């Protein structure tokens, strides 16, 4: 299981990265943390002739607060995010989701930008970015675009990135401290790819009814799936067990997940309903205690 031949580039500046991408286009693959790309190379399932390592571009590795957004440079490590006070205080949903990504020795290399660009539909970060209405900033030699999460994630391993573009930032709005967030997933073992994962937010009005909510499912479609119908149905509803059970049914009514060795489509659909209900329940409980 050895990697195939490729040309390797490790520029120090983003401009050099972009000019290499402009030159090589779809022959090139950007190497960030390598936790997804390197196994694909080892199994010879990915065959780029050029590998462009962005780890030496210092400007890409920062995590900072900018105008009520937390901005992650593309090569900010998942482990760094896990330890970041900004993440802990401003992005409770991300903080809860990060430990589900593989294991410590994966997160020390894995990057926020890399997992977003890889766009595995059962990965945690794309699900969180989708839930928080995050934006992905991508750049090519020709310029920069800021893409909203739903427009960015287009399919399993498929994004809005053009061949000559590179993710440079992932921006997440700082979370409302009065909202309740929850992230849950069911995997065969701790650290495995999720069978189903759900990120949720619930905020309650002064009357105790649900003022706003967000629900994203992962692992059950080819993109992180916002359950917008369920979100709409929750607006103004009372945060009861029945409400969340109904929302979970709505959220999973049209799911068509894949079948694999770990479970059938029917199993995943059922599991999604359970996890949506549980995650909403937890998020609502947190919203209540945040308000108290």
């Amino acid at each position, binding site marked *: *299981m050895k*990697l*195939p031949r490729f040309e390797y580039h490790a520029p120090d500046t983003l401009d050099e990265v972009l000019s290499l991408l402009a030159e090589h286009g779809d022959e090139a693959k950007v190497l960030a943390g390598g936790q997804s790309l390197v196994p694909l190379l080892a199994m010879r399932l990915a065959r780029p002739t050029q590998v462009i390592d962005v780890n030496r571009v210092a400007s890409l590795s920062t995590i900072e607060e900018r105008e009520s957004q937390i901005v992650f440079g593309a090569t900010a490590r998942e482990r760094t995010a896990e330890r970041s006070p900004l993440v802990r205080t401003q992005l409770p949903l991300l903080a809860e989701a990060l430990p589900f990504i593989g294991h410590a020795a994966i997160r020390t290399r894995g990057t926020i930008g890399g997992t977003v660009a890889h766009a595995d539909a059962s990965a945690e970060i794309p699900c969180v970015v989708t839930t928080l209405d995050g934006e992905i900033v991508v750049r090519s030699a020709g310029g920069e675009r800021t893409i909203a999460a739903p427009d960015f994630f287009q399919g399993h391993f498929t994004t809005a990135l053009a061949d000559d573009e590179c993710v440079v930032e992932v921006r997440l709005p700082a979370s409302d401290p009065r909202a309740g967030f929850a992230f849950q997933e069911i995997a*065969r073992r701790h650290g*495995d790819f999720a069978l189903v994962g759900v990120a949720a937010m619930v905020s309650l009005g002064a009357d105790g009814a649900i003022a706003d909510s967000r629900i994203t499912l992962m692992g059950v479609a080819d993109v992180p799936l916002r359950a917008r119908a369920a979100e709409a149905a929750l607006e103004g509803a009372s945060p009861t067990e029945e409400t969340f059970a109904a929302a979970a049914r709505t959220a999973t009514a049209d799911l068509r997940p894949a079948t694999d060795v*770990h479970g059938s489509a*029917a*199993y995943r659909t*059922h*599991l999604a309903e359970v996890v949506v209900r549980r995650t909403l329940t937890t998020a609502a409980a947190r919203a209540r205690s945040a308000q108290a």
Partner: protein
Amino acid sequence: MTDVIGARSVGARVLRSEDPRILTGKGVYIDDVVVPGMLHAAFLRSTVPHGRLLGLDVSEARELPGVVAVYTGADMESRSTAGTPGSTIGMNMMPGINIPSSYALATDKVRYVGDPIALVVAESRAVAEDALELIVEDIEMLDPVVTYADALDPSSPRIFEEFDSNIAMTGEMVMGDIDAVFAKADRVISATVSVHRHQPVPMEGRGSIAEWDPGEEELTIHTSTQSPHLVRLLMSPQLGIPMENIRVISGDVGGGFGLKMGLFREDIALAVAAVDLARPVKWIEDRGEHLATAGQAREEMAEMEAAVTADGVLLGLRMNVTLNSGAYPSDPFPGAMYVGSVSGSFQGPTRIEALAATSTAVFSNKSTYVAYRGPWATADFMRERLLDIIARELDLDPLDVRRRNYVHRDEPPLAMLSGQLFLGVTTQESIEQAARIAGWDEFRVRQEAARAEGRYLGLGMASYLEAAPGPKNPDAPEGGGGGIMGNEMSHVSVEPDGSITIITQQHPHGQGHQTTLAQVASDELGVPFESITVRYGDTQFTPFALVATGGSRAATMANGSVLHASRALREKIMAIAAELLEAAPQDLEIQGGTISVAGTPSITLSFAELARVVAEEPDRLPEGVDRDLEGTASYDGGMGGWSGGTHCCFVEVDIETGMVEIQRYVVVEDCGVPVNPAIVEGQVRGGVTQAIGAVLLEQSAYSEDGQFLAGTFMDYLMPTTTVVPNFEIHHLESVLLDPDVNFRGVGEGGMIVAPAAIVNAIEDALVTLGVRVREQHLPPARILELLGTVPTA
């Protein structure tokens, strides 16, 4: 380092002498071995399950810079003889067995996903893999034969065309008066129970280096094996190289579990290349190859009809067993032969009066069926599952059913249906102790209370009896007891510096024999544990062994052999020391490696001085005193004895997700006298953990069309730290049968009994919801299918 200076080493939790090496990265596993001038190999493997190999174009691969040679099936035909697995030791003569002959690389057909087609030898493994991508094969697809039904369907294509069906073996067995027990039964309870395909998966895969010396015409194989001599024995006929010209060297082995117990086709191809090129060739299997091709185990199914009394006594059983043996048989133990063990080993500690079985093993387009830690484990699963099924059907407590079915020590019947004696069987004691520790009756109260809250707890029990090595039958003509696969030979000697060397035929790969054999010799010889070195792993100096480390042999056979060899050496030492110290041998004692005259502690002789005299001044010793400082024993297992015990598993099942949590696990174990309890407990925990994997996680899955679906560690899931609990292990007082050697095997026990304990616990958790389990593999999706929450896929 012993716990207490001067105390006996046997029985103490002596720290392992292996550990400083393995903890510092100084172990030498097969991929760590570098031979000068070594080339690297990679195999082109079939991506289709079944097809006719019409053509193979390797020309472009040969042209790639760095590629030294490419071999195909045609090269194997011209440079080797087809192998007939098992034939070297007569397994192909078993009644009813069909063993095909095959070359190391596919010649006419490919028979499973992973079947080796070509061998590339290159300057590096990476270049060899590059070359694989340049080979073009022309394969005409044939219908895949995947399931039992496919194999038994006469219209399916034959996998091996030399046979007129896909039957690998058939057999029948009747023990006792089966009609009579069914005639007197109150009830007949039927169940069809299956075990899924899963596999050993040592953390180190397979690997070898073949090295040819054209001058001496000697082949050296460095390999990762459990049985070095077996490799040379099996290679010889296929290569046409005399066995005495084949040397096998094996260092540290990263786990085996029964898999590395013979010859692999890849090793023959590698040797052919090394001989042809007169250069060493290394092949290190990668994990993808390993999962698809190293070998898989345990795909069995039994239709059972049990004759039972109203109070749950199993009187007799009719069973119809089927085993899916995959394509190429394992050499020298063809998987098909294990089909007979499902009925043959079914009885265990029960008083069953009769058993009748038919057995059928089939070929399929799957990987080779290999031995895996307790290769008869399906028999234990069937029995212990059936006892719970009987309890459910009759609305009895599974503990009471076990009380009624297991033999009591020293009460008739004193022999199994097979004639093997029930001597010193402590199963009844083990179930009582396990039930007490587990709080069997109190649990029912907690279970009830939890159900009221919508939580589903379960408690399952299972027991076993393992012939490790089994008791000797004094009335049997040949002794009838002791070890399987022959006697065990050991040499123990005093080196010129007074240290002790043990040469064993074992080939430890995690079992800590460098520690345990030294513990035994330390006590027998009165020398410090640290002064003893245990050597193994090179067929140039180790005694021949068909099975080196495997079959739970080592505890009785190797320890017993070292014990007796040490005693033989001690007698020689005492005879020489008596002359040198001018004392009677019976007045001498040895402590801490120094010989002294009892009552006169000032008169002493060190082992080093003794060795010096023997080497340099032999004339000081009179005629008739042996002048070698070597003890040798060929040990037959003595009076032997049973290993056995009872496991209790506690689970909680989340009925919404199907996830099962193992909350507590209790083991009550009888393995005679443990040489090193820490090592015994390690074997038990490791075995149970593999069983937890089998039930909850691991499946060597194939699609309906024969594609292999578990080719990475993201698909083949093994237990991790967050899956397994801490284990509570209790050692039961044992009945000692031998005057000297009562160490009994413990390697397989955990793995053979635990699957039933776990599955029984899961069924127990869900029984009020109508769940009845008839299979071993229970991943979360399957739990929800059994609950009726989701439709069966």
